[in-house]
């Protein structure tokens, strides 16, 4: 988890962190220009038939409390800056799940003028869930794959750097002497 010195104490702490994270990941959902189809399926995973809260997965309102960003849509140019800003507000370590065909490649909207063609053009994505829209079972499987990767510590290295768009500077905390 990015710690440079690995003392036994820190190893124990890491294990506890991973345990907590795997057992109760808090997710935030953002629609970056999708048709709503994926979003109602994500919402359907929270409702009684699928009910992911029994696995500890909770949809959280604020990005500052979230571990996982569940993102849908082909990323319209106007939503792109907002998506980046939400990603930046999330605390490390953070994970991204791209849901739906248009989140993967632009899908049916391929060639439209106002989209970026895929979430992985903007953010480093950990899990892709294909389908137009994917079934709730598919979305749950996507989360399970991510959790499995976390548990075994086999998360791929992030190669992409994300830069905050201009005009969205984060407020710096003042240090009082």
């Amino acid at each position: 988890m990015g710690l440079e010195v690995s003392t036994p104490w820190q190893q124990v702490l890491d294990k506890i962190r991973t345990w907590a994270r795997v057992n109760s990941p808090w997710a935030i959902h953002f629609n970056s220009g999708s048709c709503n189809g994926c979003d109602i399926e994500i919402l359907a995973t929270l409702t009684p038939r699928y009910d992911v809260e029994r696995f500890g997965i909770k949809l959280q309102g604020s990005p500052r409390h979230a571990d996982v960003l569940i993102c849908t849509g082909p990323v319209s140019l106007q939503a792109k800056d907002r998506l980046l800003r939400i990603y930046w507000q999330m605390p490390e370590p953070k994970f991204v799940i791209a849901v739906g065909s248009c989140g993967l490649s632009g899908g049916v909207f391929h060639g439209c003028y106002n989209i970026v063609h895929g979430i992985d053009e903007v953010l480093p994505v950990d899990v892709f869930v294909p389908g137009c829209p994917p079934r709730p079972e598919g979305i749950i499987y996507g989360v399970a794959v991510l959790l499995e990767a976390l548990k075994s510590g086999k998360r791929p290295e992030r190669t992409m750097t994300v830069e905050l768009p201009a005009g969205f500077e984060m407020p710096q905390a003042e240090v009082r002497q």
Partner: protein
Amino acid sequence: MTLEKHGENRFVVPIGPQHPALKEPGHFEFVVDGEIVTGASVRLGYVHRGIEKGAEDRTWTQNLYLMERICGICSHIHATAFVQGVEKLAGVEAPPRARAIREIFAELERIHSHMLWLGVAAHEGGFDALFMYSWRDREVVMDMLEMLSGNRVHYSANLIGGVKYDLTPDMMDKIREGLNYLEERLAHYLDVVNNDETFIGRTRGIGTMTREQAQLLGAVGPTARASNFAYDVRVDAPYAAYAEFPVEMVVAQEGDLHARFVVRILETMESIRVLRRIFENMPESELVTRVPRRIPAGETISRVEAPRGELFYFIASGGGEKPERVKVRTPSLCNWGTVITLAVGHKLADMPMILAGIDPCFSCNDRLVMVKRNRQDPQVWTWADLRNYGIEYYR
């Protein structure tokens, strides 16, 4: 729809584009004086993808699937509106059975959409139990749609000149069974909406819109019908099989949030009734007629009643394999004006309910880009201005 210059002592509450109460991106600004809202504005466009332009690059058949993905909640009705326009241009008519199947899909979709809305609106009011119950029961409709088409959200039932899927008597029996269960549950929800005291406290007398206001602001669909504005495309200009299997229009007098709940629930029950009538007298015919590959040149309009109101399509063909222009006017866009007007004078705490009351669908709206620049009056753009702006921008 931007704010007038407000005084410096006012406080502006921004909501969105990412907000716990919003499932889709949209940005709202409410000017508040204490707890009372004195002004409201909405900024859309986060879901603008360029579909209308994209439609010009795709063939007529490919466009069917693109139009369906304008909105994931009312996907079938978008495709129906498009297909009807194209059929009108080509001078063909879908066979009777195909038209009946279109109506079946449309009414099933209305049931699923209204139940979805009932849950989301109750959730915005803090009534999460109703949200969970109505979404649980909504899965019954989703199962029916999945049985018919194999997909839960984008059914792709339409073809130009007909439909893809047929209904067997076996399927009809299964659907009938599900409808019986749903009718029972809807009666229960109507009881909750009418008699639950906390619920009435949040809805009765909130966001009241008179008939004149509804007409003036251009409200459509259940939002307008809850204000005693009797207008329903299914009744006034029947399409598909609505002439053979008519629906009754549901109208309420009060015009407040409560009336909108009642109208939508009663409409869902009416959908169930009409579905039963279709199953009793299902017309027999083939499913598709032959349609020429090239659609003759011409212009046409097509309108249908989506779950949220009147959906309007303008289609122009140049005689080729692709449309020359497709213009979509969606019901949510028509209803935004009512939110902005009704919000004034209410408490900030009522805003989520008033917003949800029109059943907003952002992904439907955003096919329009508002160009803003440092001008004296940035909202008014003449065509010549816009053209000049475009030329200057790309120079």
